[in-house]
Each structure stands twice: as structure tokens, then as C-alpha cells.
């Protein structure tokens, strides 16, 4: 059954590594839904969070193929309960002065933050789980969305409470 899976990959922080990972997906016909990458606390490592849409068999191959790359240090897959995930979105919305108050209220309820405001538009920053961002977009649609940009999902394992 096709479904989204989150894979976290720790790789050598070297040039060309992103191309190796991306190339692996494209050459074998796997779909990347989102990919986010940056250096870790150890500057020799980068960490990628990749969201893939795949069935179990393909997922297994993806993990094996990622592991096979020389520059891959660790591959983790997050199952439903064991992780925390977040995504950051910046969203720029039209502002009609008459509806501004409505908009402010919605942003507040959604835990968003206004990071820029002009006479014509406001830009909101919001960090949440990805499905909540989908909802934010729906809520703000009536105001007229000018543009959005999202980081893609990042995830980290959740430790059990002591």
C-alpha cells in the first residue's frame, strides 16, 4: 500500500552527497515528497529528512539503497508513534484593511507569527506538523494567498517520558 514514510539520513557533510541521494531516487524511480537538509551539531555530518511515498517493498529497497551509499552514515525510518515532526511555512496573504482584525485573530489561534506587514500584505511564519499547515492554508485562502514557502518536514525521534 502506498503511503508516506519519513526517513532520516545522516550523511557525510561533503559536496556532491545531496546529488548522490537525489540521483538514487530519480534513477530508481522513487518519489520524494519533501527533502530537507542541513549540517548537524557535528560539522562533518549533515542530516536529511526525506518524505517518500512508497509501499513497504519499495521502502525497504530505499532504505537499503541509501545505506549502500558510501557517504551514508545512518538511516532511520520513523514509525507512527516514535517521532516528533515539524515543518516551517512562510505565507504571504493579501490584507484588506477591513478584514485585518479577522486575519489577526486567525493567526493568533493558529499560533502563527506576523513577521512583516505592509499596506497590501502581511507575511506570517508558522511552525507545525505538516497536516496543520495544510489546514492553515485552507483557513487563509479566503483572504487571498500571494505565495507560500515550506521547508518540508523535519523529524526527530521521541524519547519516552521517564
Amino acid at each position: 500500500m502506498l503511503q508516506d514514510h519519513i526517513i532520516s539520513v545522516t550523511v557525510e557533510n561533503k559536496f556532491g552527497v545531496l546529488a548522490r541521494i537525489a540521483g538514487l531516487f530519480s534513477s530508481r524511480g522513487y518519489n520524494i515528497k519533501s527533502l530537507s537538509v542541513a549540517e548537524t551539531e557535528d560539522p562533518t555530518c549533515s542530516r536529511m529528512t526525506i518524505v517518500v511515498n512508497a509501499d513497504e517493498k519499495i521502502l525497504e529497497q530505499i532504505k537499503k539503497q541509501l545505506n549502500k551509499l558510501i557517504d551514508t552514515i545512518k538511516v532511520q525510518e520513523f514509525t507512527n508513534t516514535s517521532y516528533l515532526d515539524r515543518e516551517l511555512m512562510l505565507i504571504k496573504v493579501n490584507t484588506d484593511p477591513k478584514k485585518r482584525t479577522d486575519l489577526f485573530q486567525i493567526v493568533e489561534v493558529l499560533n502563527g507569527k506576523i513577521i512583516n506587514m505592509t499596506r497590501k500584505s502581511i507575511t506570517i511564519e508558522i511552525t507545525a506538523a505538516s497536516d496543520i499547515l495544510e489546514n492553515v492554508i485552507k483557513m487563509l485562502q479566503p483572504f487571498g494567498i500571494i505565495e507560500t514557502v515550506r521547508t518540508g518536514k523535519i523529524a526527530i525521534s521521541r524519547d519516552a517520558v521517564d
Partner: protein
Amino acid sequence: MKNKMSGAKILIDALVNEKAEYIFGYIGGQVIPIFDELFGRKDITMIVPRHEQGAAHAADGYARVTGRPGVCLATSGPGATNLVTGIANAYMDSIPMIAITGQVPTTLIGNDAFQEADITGITRPITKHNYLVKNIDDLADIVKEAFYIAASGRPGPVLIDLPSDISKGEAYFNYKDSINLRGYKPNYTGNPRQIKNAAAMIKQAKKPVIFSGGGILHSNASEELLKFVEKTGIPITTSLMGMGSIPSIHPLFLGMPGMHGTYYANMAITHCDLLVAIGVRFDDRVTGKIKEFAPHAQIIHIDIDPTSVSKNIEVTLPIVGDAKNILGQLVSLCEKSDCSIWLDEIDKWKKSHKLTYHETDHVIKPQFVIESIDKITGGEAIIATEVGQHQMWTAQFFKFKYPRQFITSGGLGTMGFGLPAAIGAQIAAPDKIVFDIAGDGSIQMNSQELATCVNYNIPVKIAILNNNYLGMVRQWQELFYSSRYSGTCLRICSHEKYHDKCNKACESDNKEKQKYTPDFVKLADAYGALGIRITEKKDVEGAIKKALAYQGPVVMDFHTDQQENVMPMVPAGAPINQMLITGIA
């Protein structure tokens, strides 16, 4: 205090430290510093082919015979891209290879400089790993890593792209004794519990078959494989890449399975209750229709590459590790299997569908030439092939005796592989007789390497099974495309009217009228090799003997039956028990 050395010298010293004896290299602008360093060096021998593709295949052939990485070298841009087919070929067959390419100076990279190509980008999907050297201080470590990666685990090609300012630059040479790559730790041992489980499954099986491949050769496990076969008494089939890992005449050997496999190997796989797969990757040419491959069998899959396991075929019991290790353990855990009824069943298939061909005196059958080479060399020659019908006939009719004897392009199916690979093989095994069994199509893809043979007196014996066609595709066209021989006829046709509908009508014309182009005897002569043309069956053996008596390279141009097909044949996508046995579908 040690003195600084040039990057070129660091490179070559590192190669020598890694026990590279030969470097198959073609010069060009960005590698002049490297060739300058090679000039006059006694500790490594440079072999100059006539095309960079020849360099890559020669390094590949050398690696297949020795088991050690072959080294090839080319300049930037077109030199590097000419290596690409050879690198892809080595990658598909898991051959250890170090490909070194010159690159424009680091200051010019990305500027679309003269003869610049992003070769690390181009070869990323066809190398096990690759490097662009940006800092001369990394060079020695990179060479060390490259050899380690190429030869360990599942072997493969590694490319090092070396900008010319790095090879001209200077640094201290410090060569490490060992390396540690945190992202690369091949698992050699195999899980002991899984191995025990495998032994139990083998014990219970009533109809077991072993299916082994190139992995046996890579891990030098032929001895363990033979012990395993003989101790358990289980029949064995090997993939094209595994030919030679067990003697072809062994009573338990069933030949090759798959598209052009034997009837009995395919039937054994289809009816077995246990398939012990070792060092194979279940290529589609072996499995045919996946859903009907070994439908009654539990499958044990032993392989060093986890990605090969359950990629094409669902496996009952995977064991990731080195074939030699695991077979060694299985030999001590396993006992003689009681499968006499099963062996009788297989024996009936063997008797009812012998691997054979229709012998005649009127025309030279290509299979007869292969059998004659086998007979006259006592089955001892190293056999390289090109790709096509002649390759399948060689796999079917040559009786291989020892591992690393059969040098053939399996995964990529690279026409033009055979001659340069035979050159590499002959250099690796100077005391052996080395044949390149070729087709008239394939040999023309790298025939320029005849010059290399003559130049270095590399006495490769080339046997062209000349049917004036790209025979394998012609066979498909005959069977599946109503004999419309589009693009497969290689003759110079004197009949204008046939040009757009080349078919059997042309065959019926007097054979004398057919023009064979090129004249391979003249071609051999032009290069300074010996050329022999053979058009009669009675002259076949004499020609082979003459070729063997001759001290240098020989081209034998056998004019063979033009319509002969490779049989049995499983049509692409069909289950492997549905074979065409003879002639026309």
C-alpha cells in the same frame, strides 16, 4: 624531513602501494603530468590502447582474471566520457576497477572549459563511489579509499577525477596503512542463526537446486561451492556470470538457467522445492516471468549486497554475507541430501532435451567452432566473448574448467567488450591461451584494439563467428517480428530491390554474391596480425591449430550458418519453463 612530491607522483606511488602492476591509459591534455610521471617508471607498466573504451574494458578483463582492481586512465571531457561504457559494464558485473580521469584545473571547473565534462556527475549512478580531488592533501587517502571500496564487499568501479593543477601541485606523501569509513562496513560473516536455519531447510528439502552466480567468483568461493555440492549431492545451475565456478562437466551441473539456459536447468528451477541462491541478483534474463519463477520453492538467498536480497524475488531466508564464509559453514552443517528421486527426474529432462544443435557438413555451425576451440585447447583457454549469439553459444557449448576462465559482459551486454577484455586477460595471465570469441558485429565495435595486440605482442586469438548479421537481434526479428530484418543485416547488398525489405529472399541468392565487409583477413593484415578465413567445416580445426601455433594475435574469420538460432529460448517476459526448443516459433 621528506620532500614534497607532485600530485602525479603521489598518484602513481599510491597505485604502486596498492600493488597495481598495469595501468591502461590514453593520454590527453589534462593527464600529461600523470603520463610524464609514468614515463620510464619500472614499477608499473603502462598499456596504451587505441580508444579509451578499450582501456576500461582491458582493466575490467584484467580484474576478472586476477580478482584485483584493474586501473584505467583517460583525459578529461571526451576521454572520460569514452570510459563511461566500460565503467557501467564493470558496475553491472561487480568488477573492481579504478578509473582515473584528468580534469580541467580547479580554477576552471564549472566554466565550460575546453574538454571539461562533469564526469563525477555523469558516473555517479554507474560507480560504486567516485571522487573529485579538490585538495592535493586528500589525494593519497582518496586512492587508498578507492582501492578499498572497489575491492571489498560487493566489488565495483570507483572513479577518481583529478584536476591538472592537483597533479602538477606539490604535497607531502603520507600513505596510511588502513582506513576507516564510518559509512561503509560490508558484512562478511553472515548471521549464524540464519545459516543454521538454512542447513535445516536444506536437510528437509526433497527437490533442492543450487543457483549460484558471479558472487562465487568474487569471493573466491569455488572450492567451498564444489565441496557444498558434492557433500550434499544437490544439483547446481550457475548464471552466466557464475560459469566456471564449477566444472561444466560435473555430473551435478545443469548448465545455465534463463532465457538461453538449458531445458533441464529451467525445469529444475520450476519444479524444485528449495532454491539455494548464492551470489546472484535474479536478473530478468534468468527469472523470466517473475511470478512463475520457482513457484513451488522456498528460497534461501546468500549475498553480500543487502540491496540484492528481495529486490526482484521474494526470499524465504536471506543471509547477508560473504559466500566463501557462509558456504564454509554450510559445508560443515549439511549432510548428504536424499534426493535420488529428484535427480532421476532431472536426469529424464537431461536425456529428453539434451543441449545440442543440428550438425551438418554443408555449412559451418557456430557451435561446432566453439566445441572445436574447447577440444583443441583442452578446455584450458581463457575465453572472452563479445555480446550476442556467439556469447550464448559459448556459455552453452564450451566446457569451462576453472573459475575466472570466462570473461563476458553479463549485466550491461556490451558489444565490443571482448577484444579489449581479452587483452587485459592475456596481460593478467601471460601463460594462458586467451580467445576472444566474437561476432562480426561486436568485433567491429573495438577492432582498433588489434593495434594494441600487435604493439605489445599480446597473442589473443580472435574467433569471429561471422554470420553477416547482428545475429541475436536477427533471431528476435525472425521469431517475433515476422522476419523483418530491420537494421540487423551487415552485408553489403548488391540488390537495390532488397534494401528496404531485407529478408530471406536475399539468403536464397548464391552465397558467392554476398559481400562480407570488412574483409577481416585484410583487416588483420593491415594491423600486422595474422588473418585466416574459414568457409568449410573441414578447415575449422586446422585453422584453430594454425592460430595456436602462431606467436602473435590472430583473427579467424569463420563464415558460419547465417540462420542459426540460439536455442532453447524463453521469449522475453514468459515463464522459464515455456521454452522454444528448436527453430521457428
